[in-house]
């Protein structure tokens, strides 16, 4: 049963690690704006000059050219 002593301490260190991670995220401002990221994820990243629709259209027109 004596294994429970180091295990309990390990458990609390592990949980404490997550608490610290959360506090770090909180104070670095990651939870300040909860609205914009929700909208931003709907946008395409990478080549932002073209939406998926216009990319397809371009491909189609290229094929026609050939």
């Amino acid at each position, binding site marked *: 049963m004596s294994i429970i002593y180091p295990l309990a301490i390990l458990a609390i260190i592990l949980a404490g690690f997550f608490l610290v991670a959360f506090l770090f995220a909180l104070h670095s401002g990651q939870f*300040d704006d909860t609205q914009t990221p929700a909208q931003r994820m709907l*946008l395409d990243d990478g080549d932002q000059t073209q939406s998926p629709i216009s990319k397809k259209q371009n491909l189609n027109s290229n094929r026609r050219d050939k």
Partner: protein
Amino acid sequence: METTISKQHFATNEAISCHHCGEKCEETINSFGFDFCCQGCVTVFDILSSNGLENYYKLEKSPGLTPTNLNNGKFAFLTDAETAQKLYCFESGNKAQVELNIPAIHCISCIWLLENLSKINPAVIRSEVNFGKKTARILFNSEETNLQKVAELLTSLGYEPDFNLADTDGKKKKVDRSLISKIAVAGFCFGNIMLFSFPHYLGLDLNTNATTAKFFSILNLVLGIPVFFYCGLDYIKSAFNLVKNKTYSLDLPIFLGMIALFFQSYYEILTATGAGYMDSLAGLMFFLLLGRFFQQKTYNRLSFERDYKSFFPLWTTVVQDNQELSKPLNKVEIGNLLKIRSSELIPTDAILKKGMAQVDYSFVTGETDPQNVKIGEKLFAGGRQCGASIEIEVTNKPDHSYLTQLWQNTAFEGNKNYSLLNIKAGLFFTVAITLIASSAALAHYVLNTGHSAIQVFTSVAIVACPCALALSAPLTLGFATRVLSKAGLFLKDSAAIEQLSRIQNIVFDKTGTLSEANSKSLNFIGKKLTTTEESLIKSLVAQSGHPTSRQIHNSLAGAIKDVSDFKEIKASGITGTVEGHVVRLGKNSWLNQTSTGTGVEIDGIFLGQFELKASYRTGLQNMLAKLKQKLFILSGDNDSEKQTLESLFQEKIDMHFEQSPQDKLSFINELKAQKDTMMLGDGLNDAGALQAANIGVAVADNIHAFFPACDAILKAQNLKNLDSLLSFTKHSMSLIKFCFLISILYNIVGLSFAVTGNLTPLLSAILMPLSSLSILIISATGVAILKKLTFRNGELK
């Protein structure tokens, strides 16, 4: 794409809508294969498409905004290094970052475009939008571009940044995240302490398993330290303040409970006489902080503390040796010559030197008609110039003007204390707990029952700790605040609900509050106009810049035709020839009529006159009839609307006209001395009255636009629900009282154990979360039921 977007799109059945802004229009400009409403929209489309940003139009249909005309030199003040420095969030080397307020942000396309600014101007390194706060944080290369150019770029795209004096105060707003981190710590400790207390709950024997029991208890003690000293910090501070100021609130008995729990646990564990109450302490803190979190829901988009500085622009144009210079407003000196362009604000008291001034003082005085001011006459701060550009000489520094004197008034000092209930309950509980605890301890001591007197004292303090009571008010108020915000009433502080429920006098401002700020309904009295006649009159007034002409122009239908021989006769009227007909429009006396008003004459025949009437918001009559409070009107305007108002209020009203801001303030102070008073207003002229009243409510058409400092903001279209809103606050207060009763019942049960000396840690650990949870459930369901009962007719949106 389905997203929650606030912008409304117009039905496009008949009229063609602009590809850029969605505005319906009759005449369109066709260019790039799309229809646009104006050249401004075409320009934006051109900029975007030539920079490969057509995606803007694919994310959202017609997302754009018509750009405002870039007055040359409008942002010239940003080149001033000192001003720019104050606006920067940070600056290092050739990089500078600025956070700009952009009220026009409204949809996903806005986010996309503003975050791709670097495609248009490569000197912009990164931009990030905060949709909730309507701000954009822009990082740019300060060697290749400057703040002025960034602001001009945004304006040319229709996203004009909003600068005001308060931004340059140098006070950087700090985000307070301490409550959430306290909740996180309390939650962490609560969970772990419960886990380590489990062996005790299951009957771990202190004698046979002494080491194990001691090990877990010590862990609990260690975890209890941050709970008491960090999470409980606000309660400790508040308790010391209360003792210092000799006042009471519920924080005091809570603090007593905390001390009893904490030190009793230490004593029991260190002397190995018991398991301690750390689980109860952590649970108590966790629930209390959670309650605070619910109550503290703030509207970071709304600013309740604005003063005159937010109203004035940051810069002004100074004329020096025939040259125009931009100067920060706080550097303007007496004697400077300022140039005020059309529709700009007069920033300080001044004398008119050049030009024709037509000043709209409606925001400052409540008067609706623009005033004509002649050269050499005084102009006051806060007026808006309606006519062409004028030049004025400064007679008072901006912070000493007539308008800003209002802010020197004592009404603007100190905070209002809303919560009487909290103070009463605090006093009651502090006295009751001390009495019961000491008499129980004394009884045990005298009767020698075998229980330690000190232990009995602390267990009473523990169990009587009014945590459920302390929770019921913040939870109920927090839930109710959310419901009210859905109904269009935004509170600065949820404790204002208690104040609202006690209101007995309601004072209304007229202009902008009861009536709509910028729309006056125009009636034509006389012969019915034919469409040809309407078109003739419209063509004539289209030539004139007079405010009345513009209103007549907007109210008439018909095509605009060419006008010849147009003449504007000062202080009389206008005349011109349209399609061979001589049209004259102006004062009736000028048209040789005996009556007063603005008449119209075609080919020498008098047709009738236009009458301007303030248009009142809809649904007022019904709401006013239901209000049982005593009603007043304080208006800065003249009494021309008296009869309309009397019929609207069904004569149960006390009206006062031509009230200066100072008059309003003193009137409220007199009323307040007798009964609790609520003031509803919108303009700077109400600022003093809003502050002085027990509750000042700003009525705003656009909650992001300017309104004076206040305790609550009411969306103008929800004014008609004022009666429901007030009755909702009353019922919410009854709900809190009901929760108080329930929690007192819990306390009586707990006390009966404590007084007899039979309180165990397990019992306390069950009783405390149970009472907190039942209060949570009662207040949440109670508010939901109230909401259904009060707002039956779709008043929530």
